[in-house]
């Protein structure tokens, strides 16, 4: 009976949502056009990266904060002292992981570089780095992580700190995260590069501190 009621409610909700979506009018504000008009000043050739790091860079700054925060929560709940030995995995997986990991590193660097003019960027590159670390752990080649030491903490926070420092530094000249057009490209590259490393560590940490 309860299940039936829940299913009925969910179905009604879906129907209402679809009905609302079918009657969407043409948007009053044309943001893609606005993005296109300002692309030259953004310091980036790809619109998605320009929106993420320049036009709405503040959202991205806070999102990185959310990721770092998630890691801190994981550490607060699940940090352990003793080292856990990796399980022995089968040799085929180990060989494949050994081949794949360097290639994934290369792919991450490519994704970071490609972000300037085609889909890619720090998030994708960081995710590939983290995947490489998780793969090495699952193949029994790398141990799970214990409580982070000083170096690891610096690595985890570096991307966010660099982003914060750039945001704060730019306040001297103008608004929060207002890149001077001449410097925009270089500053965004600096942020993206450190973010790639930190995001890779954070995403890997979310798995490896818990496993």
């Amino acid at each position, binding site marked *: 009976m309860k299940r039936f009621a829940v299913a009925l409610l969910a179905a009604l909700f879906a129907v209402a949502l679809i009905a609302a979506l079918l009657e969407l009018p043409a*948007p009053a504000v044309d*943001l893609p056009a606005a993005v296109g008009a300002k692309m030259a000043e953004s310091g980036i050739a790809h619109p998605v990266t320009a929106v993420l790091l320049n036009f*709405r860079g503040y959202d991205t700054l806070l999102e990185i904060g959310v990721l770092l925060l998630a890691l801190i929560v994981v550490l607060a709940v699940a940090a352990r002292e003793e080292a856990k030995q990796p399980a022995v995995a089968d040799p085929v997986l180990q060989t494949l992981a050994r081949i794949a990991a360097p290639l994934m590193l290369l792919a991450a660097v490519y994704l970071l570089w490609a972000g300037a003019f085609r889909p890619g960027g720090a998030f994708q590159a960081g995710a590939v780095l983290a995947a490489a670390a998780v793969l090495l752990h699952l193949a029994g080649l790398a141990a799970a992580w214990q409580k982070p030491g*000083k170096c690891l903490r610096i690595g985890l926070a570096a991307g966010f700190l660099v982003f914060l420092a750039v945001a704060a530094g730019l306040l001297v000249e103008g608004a929060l995260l207002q890149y001077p057009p001449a410097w925009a490209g270089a500053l965004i590259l600096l942020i993206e590069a450190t973010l790639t490393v930190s995001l890779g560590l954070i995403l890997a940490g979310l798995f490896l501190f818990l496993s």
Partner: protein
Amino acid sequence: MTDPLPWLILLPLLWATGAFLLGPARGARLALAGTAVQLWLAFALAAKVSSAGTALHHPVGGWGAPLGIDLAADGLAALLLILTQFVALPLFLYARAYFAGKSPAFWPLAGFLLAGMNALFLSADLFNLYVTLELVGLAAVGLVAMGGGAQQLAAALRYLFATLVGSGLYLLGVALIYGVFGTVSITALTPLVTADAPPAVWFAAGLMLAGLMAKTALFPFHYWLPPAHGGAPAPVSALLSALVVKASFYLILRLWLHPFAPLTQVAAWLPALLGGAAILWGSWQAIRAERLKELVAWSTVAQLGYLFLIFPLLGADRLALHAGGMQVVAHGLAKAAMFAAVGVLIQVTGRDAVADVAGVAARLPVTLFAFGLAGITLMGLPPSGGFLAKWMLIDAALLRGRWDMVVVILAGGLLAAVYVFRVLRQAFLLPSSGERRRVERRPVATLEWTAFALAAASVLVGLRGMEILRLLEAGT
């Protein structure tokens, strides 16, 4: 530091990350210094807003809405910013003495919590607001879960579920709004949303407000609040009950007043009805509670109800808005004081039970006085801030002939007196002989006096009511 707006967000992020870098259980001094500067910045911002008389804007990235994100500060935002830093500063002193170096992650989590709240108060962009909601929610869940046992983790997971459902509904609403209007800037949306908007907009407004009500623990979405606030360590409960639930309430009020004003008229009775039910049900549960912290947590459910009574009364005379602002401030101070005082009682008696506070009056006069003063604010006795809030609320209700609301407000005050006096009466009883033999810890002076300072502020704020009301007039 020309413009205080961005620094109110950057500063807590900086000290939170600094505390994380320093390592487990470190960073208290950093946090205290940072929060003191933030308090000063919040007052500076309030002075700027009052003298300007309108909202101040800060276009992030220099682009300006709708392409970029705007930060905006009006009187309401400035008031909540002051309240947040003002309550957080003594609570951080309290937390430093309470945890005494045994809280691995309190400081970074508290920093992210404050940053998220300050960013939420200052944002004028629906999607950016979602990001700030996530910061606040995740930091709050982490604080509840931090280093706790199975029961605390279960409460944290329930809280996580409620907060994720709430922000999920909000995000779905934002997506629909973006689909209809092509922008998420509140300033750009305000002239676009009209009463003949397409159904998707009505649907979106409903989803967003319902999600935020779940996050504010409005009856009947309150089920997650008592275990989460009642199970966390005392300084965390105080932060959550005094400040975090106010953040989502602030957002409801903001959306109600600005982009959604043409839509919300038809349903203004609904939040008031739920608020009335929350007052009666929350007070009743507080009266029946066995545990001290549970009692205070249920009292939060009841006191949040008053905030929702204002919605059908909002109008040109602004009385209801003033009552809401005053109630947010008074309850924030009083509830922080009450959880802080209860934390001392539990530490000293070693047990979290109303029955076990017998005999406390002679040993902890300062703490008990703090509890009583906070109780005065919750009951709404003069000259406290709670009195002023309830007075204006009754005035607004009478002006519109809403006798039913007056009855609920008065009944809520009486019920609050019952649960406050339940604890006070027990504290003046003599302990049974078995109780007396138990070894008891001596109270830490910092804990007692920070609780007292917050409680005194909750009463005295009533005397500064005019300044608060004048600040609310600026551009809200």
